[in-house]
């Protein structure tokens, strides 16, 4: 899967949790979920569970800890997809 495809899927997943719509419009690799999108920190775990469902992968605790930005998330997802 290309990074572009992945980004578009990720955007759909995070959309309902986003409280800063401007941040979503300017979504880039450097976007931080909490700082730029104002996603409630308690909802980060829900984002990760939705990612697992969407891509059919399981993300371990270390992976979860890393998934705070779009870039890091794409890396973790690509990594898990590759080892599937």
């Amino acid at each position, binding site marked *: 899967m290309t990074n572009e495809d992945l980004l578009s899927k990720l955007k759909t997943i995070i959309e309902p949790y986003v409280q800063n719509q401007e941040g979503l419009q300017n979504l880039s690799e450097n976007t931080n979920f909490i700082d730029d999108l104002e996603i409630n920190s308690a*909802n980060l775990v829900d984002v990760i*569970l939705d990612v697992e469902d969407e891509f059919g992968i399981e993300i371990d605790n270390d992976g979860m800890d890393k998934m705070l930005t779009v870039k890091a998330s794409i890396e973790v997802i690509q990594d898990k997809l590759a080892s599937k």
Partner: protein
Amino acid sequence: MNRRVVITGLGVVAPNGMNISEFSTAIKNGSSGIRYIDELNKLNFSCQIAGKPKYSKDYLNNYFNNVQLKGLNASGLEYGVIAGLDAWKDAGLALVDKKEDPIWNAGVIFGTGILGVDKFREAIYKVDEGNVRRLGSTSVIQTMASGISAFLGGMIGCGNITTTNSSACSTGTEAILMAYERIVSGKAEIILAGSTSDSGPYVWGGFDSMRILPRKHNQNPTTASRPMSATASGFVPGSGAGALVIESLDNAIKRGAKIYAEILGGHANSGGQRNGGSMTAPNNIAVRECIEQAIINSGITANDIDVVNGHLTATTKDINEIENWCYALKRKGKDFPYINSLKSMVGHCLAASGSIESVATVLQLKDDFIFGNINCEDIHPQIEAIVDKEKIPVKTLSKILNIAAKASFGFGDVNACIIFKKYS
């Protein structure tokens, strides 16, 4: 002189009405909300009927945002939020913008017995499968008892006390009383008070097992709930939520709010599970004391009471309750006030019963009517021996009313009684 306290908003989610307008019409017409629930049949319940609010999932979009709706599986939370936000809106109050300060003098006291049992069941399955990591963020907030006050307080933006009380079937009446006391003491100006109760087999099952639910009405649901009747055979389980915006009179006048009724006072106590009281039965002395103290606390006399909305669940304890009212009010026969039980139409909504029934009581005062007790054509002879038949109307009466008493009693031998008055 105590600060005067009034009711400025109402909301309800009941088995026979999803809002105040539907509910008001239903109770005037004697419309039952009890129906057959196939799920209870499949699960081998003896009692396969219940009072359950009816609405489509789409309806929730009016109250919850997309994130809140994700994984929402807590019926009591749904009922409570709908009733609570409706009451808030009915009072002419707004939700605080996310960027603003909360309303420091407005709070929430919204009770429940247990919250989100279906969500909890989901969580238990995942945990037992060793899959705790998949619970997500929704498990805790939908199953903590105070989830209901937390959701409402956050949606509105309340900055005063935001809590959930719990005292079994007296929960709703107790919540209103706690709100009243908070305002009388000057610690708040507005409290959204009420209570909610989940629906479903996991809530009702224990009562079915205790054999205190009717077993012979599964084919005729609407005649099953028979408070004060000679043929009463147990309470029909119910669910829903009631909500009342309780406010200081000063604040209500200041903002030009409409006023439904005044709360004169009330009392809550316990029989301590002594003198015949137990986990499941009331200490009669405590029940009488609760009613008497509520009257004293309200600065009225027992003779001022026009109508009583009883707890009256449709078990043999109804006789006991009527005897206690007679004793506490020192009134009987033709001198007894009018009395009714909403449970004839909606069943016993457990933790939600006190608030839903208080909403009905306040509507009676506001619109000058006494709703009829359905399924009570055959008054129990022991009740008819002490209260004149005309005081237990089976059809709705038009009556100018001034003062109404509402009481609820709960497992744990706990009691609560409130005195409402028409506002003037």
